[in-house]
């Protein structure tokens, strides 16, 4: 779903949101900014929880500022998740299926892919924070949205658990054809790739970038740091100086930039792009990762998946 915003204004009390022009085509988009910059207010206007004072919100070109939120096909996951208390996990997941246009097929798929089989009968207010986050993501996807708004719903997760959900989200986005707008404070989330990064401050959009070169030139780049996460054959690893090598004969394509203290590589691995920070200066045409020295990122559910998977980590990247 393509989102376009024209002249959006929303004021409550002393806070004013003003978005003159924003175009986000289908894909995965990040919004970043300090607390109170208007990120949540923008998302709530897009999904219809809040009504703008003026301006247009176009969803796939259709003016939607006056459409009811349940008619927009825009699902919203807030930071506190808002699983329906007192209901079981299954009833939470089935709620959009029973009472709206949610998909039973996606329900079965999400229960399996998000590892929720064992907690279906438990009350939603009696599961762990990590489980609740998986349920919230699953419930939103089951509602079959065209656009999924995520308002830092994974901010309380430890890194590996967050990666586990984010990696599946990418696959689900492609499988069920929805776009994502993801609000985050965690710059390492960008390592999963993006179509644009929008920076907000004091109720305004300050910058919007769609490529790494733009990102390098963006004045808001100070907000970013680079994680060293890479995804190989569906598993995640942390790259370190020891695991990185360079070769002129074969490996992964990359670009690099030199900062005073370190080099930043933008590497294309398995069709996805990753930031990798290293103290080394690249001295070869290709990036080589030594699988034996890569540190695997582990999560209980990832381990479970590993048992079910016979795919080895690529050895030919040496």
């Amino acid at each position, binding site marked *: 779903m393509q989102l376009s915003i024209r002249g959006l204004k929303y004021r409550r009390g002393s806070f004013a949101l003003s978005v003159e022009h924003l175009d986000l085509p289908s894909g995965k988009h990040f919004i970043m900014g300090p607390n109170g910059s208007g990120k949540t207010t923008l998302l709530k206007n897009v*999904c*219809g*929880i809040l009504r703008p004072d003026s301006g247009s919100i176009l969803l796939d070109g259709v003016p939607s500022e006056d459409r*009811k*939120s*349940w008619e*927009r*096909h*825009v*699902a*919203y996951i*807030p930071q506190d998740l*808002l699983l*329906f*208390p*007192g*209901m*079981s996990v299954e*009833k939470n997941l089935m*709620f*959009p299926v029973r*009472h*709206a*246009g*949610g998909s039973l097929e996606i329900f079965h798929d999400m229960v399996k892919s998000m590892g929720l089989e064992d907690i279906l009968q438990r*009350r939603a207010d009696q599961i762990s924070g990590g489980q609740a986050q998986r349920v919230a993501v699953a*419930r*939103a996807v089951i*509602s*079959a*949205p065209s656009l999924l*708004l995520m308002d830092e719903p994974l901010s309380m997760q430890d890194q590996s658990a967050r990666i586990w959900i984010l990696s599946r989200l990418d696959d689900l986005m492609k499988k069920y054809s929805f776009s994502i707008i993801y609000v985050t404070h965690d710059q390492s989330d960008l390592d999963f790739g993006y179509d644009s990064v929008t920076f907000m401050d004091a109720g305004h959009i300050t910058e919007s970038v769609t490529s790494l070169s733009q990102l390098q030139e963006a004045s808001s780049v100070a907000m970013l740091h680079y994680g060293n996460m890479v995804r190989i054959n569906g598993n995640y690893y942390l790259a370190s100086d020891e695991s990185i090598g360079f070769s002129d004969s074969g490996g992964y394509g990359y670009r690099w930039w030199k900062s005073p203290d370190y080099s930043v590589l933008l590497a294309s691995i398995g069709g996805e792009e990753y930031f990798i920070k290293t103290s080394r200066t690249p001295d070869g045409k290709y990036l080589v990762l030594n699988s034996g020295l890569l540190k695997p990122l582990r999560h209980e559910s990832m381990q479970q998946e590993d048992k079910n998977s016979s795919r080895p980590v690529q050895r030919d990247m040496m």
Partner: protein
Amino acid sequence: MRNRLLLLFFPFMAAYLIFLILPIVRILTFNSFSFLVGDASSGILASIYYTYLIALAVAVISVLLALPYSFVMARRNSVPYRIADSLVEIPIMIPSTVVGIMILITFAPQMPVGSAIARIFPGYTFQDSLFAVIITLLFVSSAYSIRIVGVSYRQEILRYEEEAMTLGISDSKSFLLLSVPMLIKPMARGIVLSWARAISAVGSLLIVAYYIFPSFTQLAGVFIYSQFLGGGLPDAAASSSILIITGIIAMAILRAMGGRNAAVY
């Protein structure tokens, strides 16, 4: 530091509790048990029965009104709505006898609203009618239900409803299937408070319905007041003791029912 504050505050807390409990203990022990048994045949039991029943009906009506009221108010934030919302608390601050007079000059058949009702229902009377009792008690007690349900809905429940709507569920379905079950507990709390307030009303009833015709029933507060005027302190104290004992039992039952109903899923 925390323990010092605890030591400092504890006497105030204890003094307040003693201040609350002392009059209750005093009235429960004012007469002998045999005197209480004797007073039970004075008509107070029937009066208490009707009082509780009517107060419960009024409390239920209050809560049913609180639902649509809260739904609308939670979605409207403009100045006229905020002014209208602040009116809800006015009945709480008006003296009870004044409420009786206000209700009487509004709903009596010769008054504007009353005469309009009389045109629709020929033979309509107001003073000393069951309708007058219900209208009066609703006026003095409904604010409690409205506030409890309204605040719970706006501050705790509405956001779940909004979340459900982003999942494609319509506003009416979200309200009925999600919010109403979540409102059971605040509604039960509202019923208990409105019920208790309705039972304690006396001054307004003295004006609009000293007796309820045709049964000549007096609600408990009025009954005890008339006992005090006619038979003196012992009779009134004995009936008050019976009212308090039954009230504590009834409130415990209502609270228990509210607690059970809260687990609706």
